[in-house]
């Protein structure tokens, strides 16, 4: 019996286990998926928890329920990966040998990377919403908030879901309006980027939305320290931002198991071929989702698009052929803008988010880079799609792993978009 081992039972690991179970004969291949607990969190839903739009029970389900028949789920921590010996050492010392390995260990927040962040103010006046616990506590803090300055700080790029900080601020604007206290709240976005977003067309548009909503933007702000007694966030170049409530997107890092295995870059993300998804460390190791060091977004949609590519490349590698499927960096994200509306962006390594319709030209029904109610319903409907279609590794109708130019309007002054069209 040959062995495929998948580390991580999140979005990427679960959908890969389903794809590979369908693709590999059961009498020749066993598939094992390892995760430290049985809590599968619907991560896009964490954004809605601070505003009371979702609760705990809306975002958490048993991993076991989504791991398909014929795949063994092992609930265990991972100590180290030993690629030279083709095996994984689990937390209790058990050795798990493999013929092929898929690393899908995701990313985590590392708040200790910013001096003072986890000091006396942590979870009192400083919160995160990238964990379920953090999002729930932030909900209580927002309910108790009587006004003042709310600062959202992105500590360092890359982060999971690069649009989530903007969405948080748009939703906060809406939330405080609804509570009749928007005039008592100052919203500030402190980002290390030089604009609201880096892709030029989307950045200009999102920057405009920020301005319309009266959200102040502090760009090129690289936070160096938090003084939670004085409630001041200061940058390396000695700018100071006072806050009453600090919402932090702490440094995102790969799994500690990757660090222990000495297989990561300086943020513990695994060096990976950006086209084939093969790990640099060994030809029988592949990486998918947030765990990679790829210059693509860390997002569930990306894991989904990578899934189709990785399945082909794993089957090629298993058959002794060179992996030839080519990931293009495709990402697709809904961006909540508040008041029941959202934007949609669709892009890849080479083509920035462009206006137009999605997925069908002229018909849509979704609009790209333009606020609409339909896009907001799309985002809410996505939760059903996630649990019922995406995790089972099925393709979504009309949406291919590779980005399509169908329906997109390429600006005349963007040569890259023209080439790709």
């Amino acid at each position, binding site marked *: 019996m040959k062995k495929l081992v998948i580390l991580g039972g999140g979005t990427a690991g679960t959908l890969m286990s389903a794809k590979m179970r369908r693709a590999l004969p059961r009498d020749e291949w066993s598939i094992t998926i390892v995760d430290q607990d049985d809590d599968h969190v619907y991560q896009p839903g964490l954004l809605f928890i601070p505003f009371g739009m979702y609760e705990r029970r809306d975002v958490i389900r048993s991993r076991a329920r989504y791991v398909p028949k014929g795949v063994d789920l092992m609930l265990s921590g991972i100590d180290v990966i030993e690629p030279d010996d083709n095996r994984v050492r689990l937390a209790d010392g058990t050795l798990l040998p493999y013929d092929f390995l898929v690393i899908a260990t995701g990313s985590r927040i590392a708040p200790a990377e910013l001096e003072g962040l986890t000091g006396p103010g942590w979870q009192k006046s400083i919160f995160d919403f990238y964990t379920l616990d953090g999002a729930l506590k932030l909900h209580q803090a927002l309910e108790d908030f009587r006004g003042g300055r709310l600062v959202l700080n992105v500590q360092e*790029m890359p982060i999971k879901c690069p649009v989530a900080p903007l969405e948080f601020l748009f939703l906060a604007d809406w939330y405080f309006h609804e509570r009749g206290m928007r005039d008592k709240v100052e919203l500030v976005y402190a980002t290390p980027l*030089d604009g609201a977003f880096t892709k030029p067309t989307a950045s200009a548009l999102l920057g405009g939305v920020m301005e319309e909503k009266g959200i102040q933007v502090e760009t090129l702000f690289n936070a160096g320290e938090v003084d939670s007694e004085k409630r001041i966030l200061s940058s390396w170049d000695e700018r100071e931002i006072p806050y009453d409530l600090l919402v932090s997107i702490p440094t995102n890092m790969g799994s500690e198991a990757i660090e222990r295995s000495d297989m990561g870059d*300086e943020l513990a993300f695994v060096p990976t071929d950006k086209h084939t998804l093969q790990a640099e460390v060994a030809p029988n190791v592949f990486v998918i989702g947030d765990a990679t060091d790829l*210059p693509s*977004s860390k997002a569930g949609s990306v894991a989904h698009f990578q899934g189709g590519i990785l399945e082909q490349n794993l089957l090629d590698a298993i058959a002794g052929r060179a992996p030839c499927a080519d990931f293009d960096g495709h990402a697709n994200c809904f961006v909540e803008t508040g008041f029941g509306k959202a934007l949609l962006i669709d892009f890849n390594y080479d083509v920035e988010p462009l206006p137009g319709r999605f997925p069908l030209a002229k018909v849509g029904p979704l609009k790209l880079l333009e606020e609409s109610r339909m896009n907001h319903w799309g985002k809410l409907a996505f939760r059903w799609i996630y649990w019922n279609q995406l995790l089972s590794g099925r393709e979504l109708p009309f949406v291919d792993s590779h980005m399509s130019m169908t329906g997109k309007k390429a600006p005349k002054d963007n040569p890259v978009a023209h080439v790709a069209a």
Partner: protein
Amino acid sequence: MSTATFAGVPVEVDAEGFMTNPDEWTPEIAEEIARQNGIDPLTERHWAVIDFCRRDNEAKGTPPTVRRITKQAGVPTKEMYQLFPKGPGILAAKISGLTKPKGCI
């Protein structure tokens, strides 16, 4: 794409003044871009960072992040901000003749 002249040499730059071809770069070009950005002269510590950025870009195909520079070239974050004020990652890349670092994706 447009052309800019640094130290008497015409080179290709993007809309924000980042060189698009690292092979056209020379140490004299670095000195002139540095001067235009308020850094004069380039010290030994600046050069340690620039050398690392160029080597790393050649190996990885992308300019290094500040975190990568601090860890790999042994220049603490605080010093990076003294050497290359405001945005050290972006400024170091610009002076090293590299494309603008892609922070967000």
